[in-house]
């Protein structure tokens, strides 16, 4: 089963672009004057995944998510903590029976420092630490529609780079990060009443590949409140245990509040 990813994403992005185009104020400085920033977003997207712990078949569908982000800017550093959660309802991409529901929650921390300035564009680089847990409820197409839950969790670390520039009175920024390694919790089989002790394994670049890419626009950079529009692309491929591979596109909108002076 294929999803109309192209058209729906384009519609959402058109909305996102209109937020930027609607700004009439002149460009603000690339670095906002506020030292703290809190934003909450909600969005939807499409996810495709194969989780071999449950099935060798690919599943895909609609995901709804919510995110909370806090940014602190002490001097040249930008420190961001993000909490996010999502629920996805997935159908097989082939013609056979079965369904999945994926519940995910995670926490990420970015530490970036300004490394270059290209005219109005500020480049930052640093480190992203990310952790998330995923509960996949897989309903099989057998006669009794057996449902099994598969739980996994990942903690990763890797480099991150971002570019930001003033745009229409707000700030447009792009962020990319890749995990280079981390810790993985992936039980050998489905979640059961009889629990084993938690075993963590390490993962490196040979078994863990991914890309997190985001475009984010925040309006009214010099004001206390603004609107946030964000697009994120996330690709993930883990081959160290049960093969888990996923691609997620999410477009979100929300509000941002800013407070405190920069450097305080």
């Amino acid at each position: 089963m294929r999803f109309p990813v192209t058209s729906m994403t384009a519609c959402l992005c058109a909305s996102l672009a209109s937020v930027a185009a609607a700004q009439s104020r002149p460009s603000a400085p690339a670095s906002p004057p506020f030292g703290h920033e809190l934003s909450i977003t909600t969005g939807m997207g499409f996810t495709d995944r194969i989780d071999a712990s449950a099935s060798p078949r690919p599943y895909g569908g609609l995901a709804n998510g919510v995110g909370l982000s806090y940014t602190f800017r002490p001097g040249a550093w930008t420190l961001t903590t993000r909490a996010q959660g999502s629920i996805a309802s997935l159908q097989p991409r082939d013609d056979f029976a079965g369904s999945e529901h994926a519940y995910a929650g995670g926490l990420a921390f970015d530490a970036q420092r300004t490394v270059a300035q290209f005219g109005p564009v500020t480049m930052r680089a640093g480190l992203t630490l990310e952790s998330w847990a995923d509960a996949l409820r897989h309903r099989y197409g057998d006669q009794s529609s057996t449902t099994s839950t598969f739980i996994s969790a990942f903690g990763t670390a890797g480099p991150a780079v971002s570019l930001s520039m003033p745009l229409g009175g707000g700030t447009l920024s792009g962020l990319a990060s890749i995990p280079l390694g981390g810790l993985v919790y992936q039980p050998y089989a489905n979640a059961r009443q009889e629990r084993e002790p938690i075993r963590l394994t390490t993962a490196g670049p040979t078994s863990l590949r991914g890309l997190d890419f985001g475009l984010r626009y925040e309006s009214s950079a010099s004001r206390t409140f603004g609107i946030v529009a964000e697009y994120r692309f996330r690709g993930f491929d883990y081959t160290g245990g049960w093969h888990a591979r996923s691609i997620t596109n999410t477009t979100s909108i929300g509000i941002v509040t800013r407070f405190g002076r920069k450097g305080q």
Partner: protein
Amino acid sequence: MRARRKIAAVCLAAAATVSGCAASDLIGPGATADYSSMFEDMWTQFDLHYSYFDLRGVDWNAIGARYRPQAGAVTTDVQFANVLGSMLKELQDLHVSLTPTGAGGTVRWYSPYETSEPTVNINAILGKYLTSSFVTTGGHIRGGFVAPGIGYVRMASFSESGWDAEMDDALGRLSGATAMIVDVRDNLGGSKTTATAIAGRFADRERTFGYVRLRNGPKHSDFSADIAETVKPVGAKRFTGQVYVLSNRRCMSSAEDFILAMRVLPQTTVVGDTTAGASGAPLVRELANGWTYTISQWIAYTVDHQTFEGVGLIPDVTVKLGRTATDEVIERAVALAQGR
């Protein structure tokens, strides 16, 4: 400035759209659905998960070598289902099965006892032995009094939901009983949680009734440490008088968990025949063509650390059910309850 804004907005939309286009293609097609690939997938999943290779002395490599050429030669789903089914039957495990879609029903190995032993005639019991009878609202429990002060409840499975209210109802109706006959003969199992919770209606305190070891690694000998299974008092209505649990060769899976839990209670006597010995707790998997199959994924042990897979649980009082209108097992249980 206006031009730059437009360029940025277009870039934003273009990047999002391109990524969106790519998503369903990047994820790839999944596993290959040709017969040889699916055979390898199933064989490998059993190799990685099945728990009774060593206990049953199964040479899985040899079995794979024997059936692999057959799987490579099939041309139809029916032929493929027959090859896979035949391979799985070699394990002689009641929890191992294959459910093809569109190629017939579930394929599994059948124990000789499943066809040779007489089944329980519940209508005969209701008519001949029960002085009064009831069925709970969900239809899971039938019961009544078989003699003054001796209650009888029958549970033919531990599947589905709604058991709590039904157990309250059944025990409420039998509140005058001083002894209880719990008939789980022909009970093919269902939910272990349900089975253990029902046993909890008869428990005086928390007790360990067995252990399981989970297959947790690629080697056939990779298992977790013992994980204790416990039964503890639960429910609004409970019964702690003498209990006689009726078993037979068609008691399997969660029904055997129920018997394990009941027999560690000091007031319980198990009457009837040995159980099926099917303790594997199946893991469901699916093939690339949507067919599903089940794999036993643990070894269960009694509280004395004895395995009973393929052997069964031996009752305290052995009584074979004949093929007459008389239910010798229930009659023996009544006699025991009456001190005869």
